[in-house]
């Protein structure tokens, strides 16, 4: 397949999405209204763990305006269970979630009933008086309690360990036995989540005459979710459509199939009326996938000159009450990426996913990458200090060199085959990054107190895959006015794919971008598609559009040949026109008008060969030991993303991801008490970065090496900049506080947490 190069790809084209969003003309799900629609509110368990004894809805049902209160008892036949969409773990099937609790509740926020009323306000009032009777069971509030076996979430399983496997490469045991140096450390990352600004919502409409279900508010993977919903409703696929509207951020959590994705359509069919459901922020916090809660016990073995020989680790993910649609992604990817972009011959991993009575956890931007980079990069700085080697030098010695690429990493996840890091120059990017932060020039201020604050530098490296999952499809159609309508299965979550996909299509057909319109995500557009996750919209969707464009040009030539009565070989396609010797020129509009049938072409792209992006980040921090506050004086990211469709969008993704990562480092925490009761229920409790927090963030995306793993030569660029943030900041803080011996080992690094570390450190009293 030839990939055409025109002049849109690679340029910072302003986004075509922007004018409608800026003028308030976007259409998000809660902006949709359907005639006769009623409103749903979910009744959720307020108890973390218990036997569900009964639900008395009689008082709620007697309220004027209440249409129905539905519980598990209203579902005929078996209650649907949420499947593993990705990262399936063998043996974890019994730990999956039913779409509504029937006998047992396992987390605060678990749906037990759905109230439908004539208005949102009435439905909310009625929800308050649905009497839910629960007999409490000892809650499992954390993984330690989970492994102790004093209480089980699933009695018949007799364990809270939903999955455990050993995996690795080489012979770590032998390496540790003969190593000159070893060090063992424990690290952890706290439970937090993506918190997109638009909360979830759905609008479902059952058409009893045609037996058709339409659901607005789809995101991420509409085609997968359509199939799932159709199965649960006992309908054929073609009788269910999921429509994607504007989506106010997703970051991995939004668009997975949740209980409400069944309950709301189910209620619509039950009542024969459109049903709208819009969650509030408190609900969002207890019902959207949580993420990131990982505990890591890791040991490193090195030679006498500071070369890493082996790494072994026990990695435990607290997955909450159920193993959700993203399966074992959190623990498994933490394991896979623990070794990072370094030459580590022997790796031995023990990977556990443990259930607890908390909201189920799933993937959030860079799942396992953010966590593993924190563990690894923090450990490496401790090791470098033991050796008396500078952090930069330690990385130089151990990074995989360009000559060693492609580097075989073996099979580090059980549900995927062996893979390899492909191209790149890890050392060059590290050097650039170190230079940009002023690693040499600022050497004198490291660990020093200046104007009351201790200054420090931190650096870290990462590698990340992109473009997982099945193939993506696209259809291109020539309209009568000569414009091109593109339908692609990729879904938009706010990342700007309408612009980027139009750039790709315009170059491929060599026509102005203004003549291309991109429709995406909805199941009405294509018979089969997949969606967007794991930075796959350009890799899968973009290459599917390329394939469709190549096919469209052949179709156009054949149509024109037929029209002129010549051979297709004698027809040339040039910049939106068709030409044959002696017959002049036909524009796309002229050809489309001349023919009775629409001119269309299909294209598809799929690959199991994921490209690997990489980069280095560095930070300069200033720490106030009196308050524990950390100022991020400077933050620099250097990443080799290869070919960029739209550098402006890439840059925006980098800055956004870094600041999101800084939120995870300093602020964000979904807190539970000992009874597994969620304590963070508002944005006043769950702190997110605001404009005054992190002003000095710089990102440089490089087109240094290009992947050969897909025709466009693109890697994912939206997700990975979040990966190294915690490691880099942790290292910078440790560097600033060398004189106190402070080593951050867990997140978040809040002012009180850091203040405590300073005061607990040996020399802390000397401050």
């Amino acid at each position: 397949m030839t990939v055409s190069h025109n002049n849109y790809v690679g340029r910072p084209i302003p986004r075509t999405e922007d004018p409608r969003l800026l003028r308030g003309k976007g259409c998000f799900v809660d902006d949709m209204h359907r005639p006769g629609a009623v409103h749903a509110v979910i009744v959720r368990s307020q108890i973390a763990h218990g036997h569900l004894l009964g639900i008395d809805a009689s008082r709620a049902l007697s309220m004027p305006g209440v249409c129905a209160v539905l519980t598990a008892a209203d579902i005929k036949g078996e209650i649907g269970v949420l499947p593993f969409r990705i990262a399936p773990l063998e043996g974890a099937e019994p730990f999956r979630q039913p779409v509504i609790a029937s006998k047992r509740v396992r987390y605060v926020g678990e749906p037990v009933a759905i109230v439908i009323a004539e208005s949102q306000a009435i439905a909310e009032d009625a929800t308050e008086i649905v009497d839910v009777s629960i007999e409490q069971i000892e809650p499992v509030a954390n993984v330690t309690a989970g492994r102790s076996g004093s209480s089980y979430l699933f009695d018949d399983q007799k364990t809270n360990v939903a999955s455990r496997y050993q995996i690795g490469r080489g012979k770590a045991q032998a390496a540790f036995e003969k190593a000159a140096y070893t060090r063992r450390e424990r690290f952890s990352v706290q439970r937090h989540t993506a918190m997109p600004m638009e909360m979830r919502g759905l609008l479902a409409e059952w058409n009893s005459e045609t037996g058709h279900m339409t659901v607005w508010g789809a995101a991420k993977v509409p085609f997968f979710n359509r199939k799932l919903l159709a199965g649960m409703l006992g309908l054929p696929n073609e009788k269910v459509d999921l429509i994607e509207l504007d989506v106010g951020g997703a970051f991995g959590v939004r668009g997975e199939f949740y209980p409400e994705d069944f309950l709301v359509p189910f209620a619509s069919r039950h009542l024969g009326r459109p049903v709208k459901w819009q969650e509030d922020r408190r609900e969002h916090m207890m019902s959207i996938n949580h993420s990131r809660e990982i505990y890591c016990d890791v040991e490193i073995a090195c030679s006498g000159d500071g070369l890493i020989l082996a790494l072994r680790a026990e990695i435990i993910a607290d997955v909450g009450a159920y193993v959700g649609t993203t399966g074992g992604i959190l623990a498994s990817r933490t394991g896979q990426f623990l070794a990072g972009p370094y030459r580590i011959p022997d790796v031995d991993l023990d990977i556990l996913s443990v259930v607890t009575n908390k909201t189920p956890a799933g993937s959030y931007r860079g799942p396992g990458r953010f966590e593993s980079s924190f563990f690894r990069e923090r450990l490496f700085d401790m090791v470098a200090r033991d050796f008396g080697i500078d952090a930069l030098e330690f990385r130089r010695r151990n990074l995989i060199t360009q000559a060693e690429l492609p580097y075989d990493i073996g099979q580090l996840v059980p549900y995927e085959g062996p893979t390899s890091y492909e191209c790149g120059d890890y050392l060059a990017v590290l050097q650039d990054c170190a230079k940009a932060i002023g690693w040499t020039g600022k050497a004198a201020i490291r660990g020093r107190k200046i104007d009351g604050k201790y200054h420090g530098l931190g650096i870290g490296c990462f590698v990340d895959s992109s473009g997982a999952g099945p193939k993506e499809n696209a259809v291109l159609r020539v309209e009568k006015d000569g414009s091109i309508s593109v339908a692609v299965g990729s879904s938009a979550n706010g990342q700007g794919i309408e612009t980027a996909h139009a750039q790709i299509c315009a170059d491929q057909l060599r026509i102005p971008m203004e003549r291309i319109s991109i429709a995406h995500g909805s199941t009405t557009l294509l018979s089969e598609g997949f969606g967007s996750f794991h930075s796959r919209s350009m890799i899968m969707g973009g290459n599917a559009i390329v394939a469709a464009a190549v096919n469209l040009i052949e179709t156009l030539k054949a149509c024109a040949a037929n029209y002129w009565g010549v051979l297709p070989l004698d027809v040339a396609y040039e910049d939106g026109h068709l030409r044959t010797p002696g017959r002049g020129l036909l524009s796309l509009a002229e050809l489309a008008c001349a023919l009775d049938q629409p001119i269309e072409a299909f294209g598809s792209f799929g690959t199991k060969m994921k490209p690997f992006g990489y980069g280095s980040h560095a930070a300069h921090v200033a720490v106030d030991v009196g308050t524990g506050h950390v100022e991020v004086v400077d933050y620099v990211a250097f990443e080799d993303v290869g070919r960029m469709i739209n550098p402006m969008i890439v840059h925006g993704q980098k800055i956004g991801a870094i600041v999101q990562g800084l939120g995870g480092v300093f602020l964000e925490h979904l807190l539970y008490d000992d009874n597994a009761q969620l304590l963070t229920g508002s944005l006043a409790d769950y702190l997110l970065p605001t404009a005054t927090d992190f002003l000095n963030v710089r990102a440089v995306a490089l087109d240094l090496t290009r992947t050969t793993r897909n025709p466009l030569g693109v890697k994912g660029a939206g997700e990975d900049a979040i990966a190294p943030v915690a490691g880099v900041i942790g290292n910078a803080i440790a560097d600033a506080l060398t004189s106190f011996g402070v080593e951050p080992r867990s997140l978040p690094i809040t002012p009180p947490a850091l203040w405590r570390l300073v005061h607990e450190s040996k020399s802390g009293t000397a401050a």
Partner: protein
Amino acid sequence: MTLLDVSFSVNGELFKVQVESRRTLADCLRHDLRLTGTHVGCEHGVCGACTVIVNDAAVRSCLLLAAQVDGWAIRTVEGLASGEQLSPLQQAFQDNHALQCGFCTPGILMTAQALLESEPDAGDERIVEVLSGHICRCTGYVPIIKAIAQARDVIKSGRQTAR
């Protein structure tokens, strides 16, 4: 529940609505008047997505009841552009890639609009300070600060030219 008669203007147009006393201005704008450009991100006054301009001040419409604004003048994001022509502020947002998903954007635009009207010479630090009342999950704020500063400069140079 008794309904209250309320009338107020939105973007210069007069609206008369009957609302329950508990109806927030945000819900009234969105669901009664179908002006869905104003978004609701938290319903407890933290995120700022629902910000509108009430009598020339930027206000969170989720913290105001519709019944309170009787006789007042409201401006929403729908009133910023002149037809297809983006305002200098909106244009600066597009130029600087100051929005991704666009959900928080309407509220930020209204806050920035109110700021630049009341303090046309607002410095960058003042812009950051005012913007800190909003949550954006996509952009990391850096491009938003640039956009508002650009709009300030464009509006100021426009005024000078007009003189």
